[in-house]
């Protein structure tokens, strides 16, 4: 029997087959999501399987370039390219959140190309004021109604509350796994942690939580983690290329924490279970997800600096995707604050879909040498 970690890693590696198998086995519909700001609970309460959409790393962008220019985010271009090529046959639609322009563009283009699929747009507010929350509740109510029409089934309050419980348990377990990395010798690497989180975007949440329970037992049995003298935090948008994590962690280096969409930003929040209106609970929980486009630099700094302190990171690597304007506009001031106020050195590397790792390796190695000096 493969270990929990192996099962999670293989679900990430073989995501298309795993998702297709889930669909064949359960017969449930599947909806794709971009960014961690869309409340998955709402989708699960509708009996639909949410799938976070990332491109698979085996395909040159060809068809997508006639829709999205090369100066737009290559991850999204690769995503759209693969959608056009039918690489996500299990998908029945998508929910597009208010985020960057390229993601927003997909809303109507998706509708034009996949007219029989479910497609919705969710305006996520960029504030957490009462006005913003009240708006978000109504917006979630509209999407809930759209989902009900799509599935032909009402989303009951009980199913929503249950989905919130399941979501909270999953997030809590993810945080528990992350907490283990505070140790002097972290029992799991950054790459392993990446697979743990990424598998939560593929697998059924309860199944994933079960695997995490097993993982926690397995990790408790790991007597000694690898010797680590450099502890890093990685910050960026979608830092999904496993090769990058592997390359950074070579030789006594561990990524002990992250501030990325496909990492901690996806589960650092929790959703209140006792709030009278579960939609309001979701709105309050998800309005706090700190993505580059909705969180202020001040809030991002607070988030990152707390993490640096708690996880005892002695360096920060900004791994920002080429053409990600929001992350790139945040970076200079956030970087300055980290250096000035937390006194931790940083490195900025630009990533891209199918990027050549060799030049990045040179820069990362040089940075690590300076940290060791």
């Amino acid at each position, binding site marked *: 029997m493969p270990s929990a970690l192996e099962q999670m890693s293989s679900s990430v590696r073989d995501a298309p087959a795993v998702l297709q198998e889930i669909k064949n086995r359960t017969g449930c519909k599947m909806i794709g999501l971009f960014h961690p700001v869309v409340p998955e609970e709402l989708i699960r309460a509708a009996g639909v399987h949410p799938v976070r959409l990332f491109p698979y790393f085996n395909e040159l962008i060809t068809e997508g370039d006639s*829709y999205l220019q090369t100066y737009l985010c290559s991850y999204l271009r690769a995503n759209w390219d693969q959608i056009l090529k039918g690489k996500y046959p299990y998908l029945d639609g998508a929910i597009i959140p208010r985020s960057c322009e390229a993601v927003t563009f997909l809303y109507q283009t998706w509708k034009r190309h996949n007219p029989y699929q479910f497609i919705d747009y969710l305006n996520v507010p960029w504030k957490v004021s009462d006005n913003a929350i009240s708006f978000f509740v109504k917006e979630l109510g509209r999407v809930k109604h759209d989902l009900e029409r799509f599935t032909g089934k009402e989303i009951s309050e009980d199913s929503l509350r249950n989905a919130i419980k399941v979501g909270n348990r999953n997030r809590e377990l993810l945080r528990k796994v992350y907490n283990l990395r505070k140790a002097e010798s972290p029992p799991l690497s950054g790459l392993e942690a990446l697979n743990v989180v990424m598998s939560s975007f593929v697998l059924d949440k309860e199944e994933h939580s079960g695997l995490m329970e097993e993982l926690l037992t397995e990790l408790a049995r790991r007597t000694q983690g690898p010797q680590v003298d450099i502890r890093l935090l990685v910050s960026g948008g979608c830092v999904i290329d496993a090769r990058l994590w592997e390359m950074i962690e070579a030789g006594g280096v561990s990524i002990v924490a992250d501030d990325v969409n496909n990492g901690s930003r996806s589960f650092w929040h929790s959703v209140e279970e006792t709030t009278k209106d579960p939609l309001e609970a979701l709105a309050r929980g998800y309005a706090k997800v700190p993505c580059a486009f909705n969180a202020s630099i001040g809030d991002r700094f607070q988030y990152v600096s707390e993490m640096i302190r708690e996880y005892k990171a002695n360096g920060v690597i900004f791994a920002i995707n080429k053409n990600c304007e929001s992350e790139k506009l945040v970076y200079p001031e956030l970087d300055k604050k980290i250096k000035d106020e937390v006194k931790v050195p940083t490195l900025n590397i630009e990533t891209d879909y199918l990027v050549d790792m060799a030049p990045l390796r040179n820069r990362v190695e040089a940075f690590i040498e300076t940290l060791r000096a």
Partner: protein
Amino acid sequence: MAEKKRERPAFNRDIAAAMNTHYRDVQTNKPMAYTLMSSNPLIEVAYAAGIQPAFPENYACICAARHASEEYCETAEAYNYAPDVCSYCRNNLGYIYGPGESPPMGGIGDPDLLLLTTSACTHYFKWWDALCEIYAKPLIYVNTPRVMEPQSVPDYYMGYAMREIKGAIADIEKIMGVKITHDRLSQAVKLSGDVIDYWQKLLELQKAVPCPVDLSDLTNALFVLIVLVGTQEGVDLMKKIYDEASQRVAEGKGVLPREEEKHRLVWINIPFWYKLGIFGYFEDRGCVFPFSDYTQYIWGTTRMDASKPLESLARKALGGELNTSVDDQIGKLLKDIKDYHVDGVVAHSNRSCRVLSVGVLDAVKIIREELNIPAVVLDCDHTDERVYSDATIMNGIDAFLEMLG
């Protein structure tokens, strides 16, 4: 072919004078707020509050037209703002970090306040957030939802936007120690509405053959529509622009004489501010641009009602091309191409303006299919002159002109 010298409408001189006054004001008047241009309801609020608005986006256009942007962009890059960040932002940040000895128009002063709406490009919020860090001044913003289906906007969008504006007004009053009375706000909204009414009438005149006013004249007039909206000066100047254009139509006077106007084109996206002479190149070859999505769909699209100032400002914030969907833009283009008797499309795929560029390839494809007219896509940048390649752009344009015949 040598570029012909043409007589520009006289209103350009008045606009130039108004620009001079504005740029003098933004160096001296206090309190002053950096105010985002795009569909920003807080422009009228600033005027009603007696706060001088200054517009970094407009300043970027001016810097580009005066070929100062290259240096400012380079300065911003030296301060870690990457070259793939919008050149309006880099121009502004570069100007802040290194204005140089003689910045265009004398530059703009330091702000006391930052006033933003989120109904424009997504990353603008980050730009203003960075300004908030740099200047340590309060950032007040109106958060509006993006309207993806303008034909069926949920009712609560309007309520949210109105409460956002109301909240912003309260914050401005508190922070700046000013009182924005209902009467003053109504008056600013009324003046804004008057400017918009003249602007809409001006756009209607552009349907005339020959086309009375050039696209570079219209982009000049945008200064009045955006910067002076909510002021009597703005109303007077826009009336003057309209009157002159109207007179030109009555006299049959066009950018080109009627017999020389061979083709009417639409320009999609923002012009190359450092290369506005490109319109002269087209004119020399019998082509005029009666409209552009940039002049037509972003500002001045909302009729204002002075008796309902908050509602009017909320409509402004929710409306406009920057806050809507690609399909909405394409639908408008298909209609206006017919209404303005347009027979060719020049689309700028603008690497610095994602919000106007993400749908450009789709738009061109659909326009070609549905209207069967030629189109060219030019890959460039509105402000960063380093991106402009004369050989590539002119090749594209010449091939397009050959197709037009």
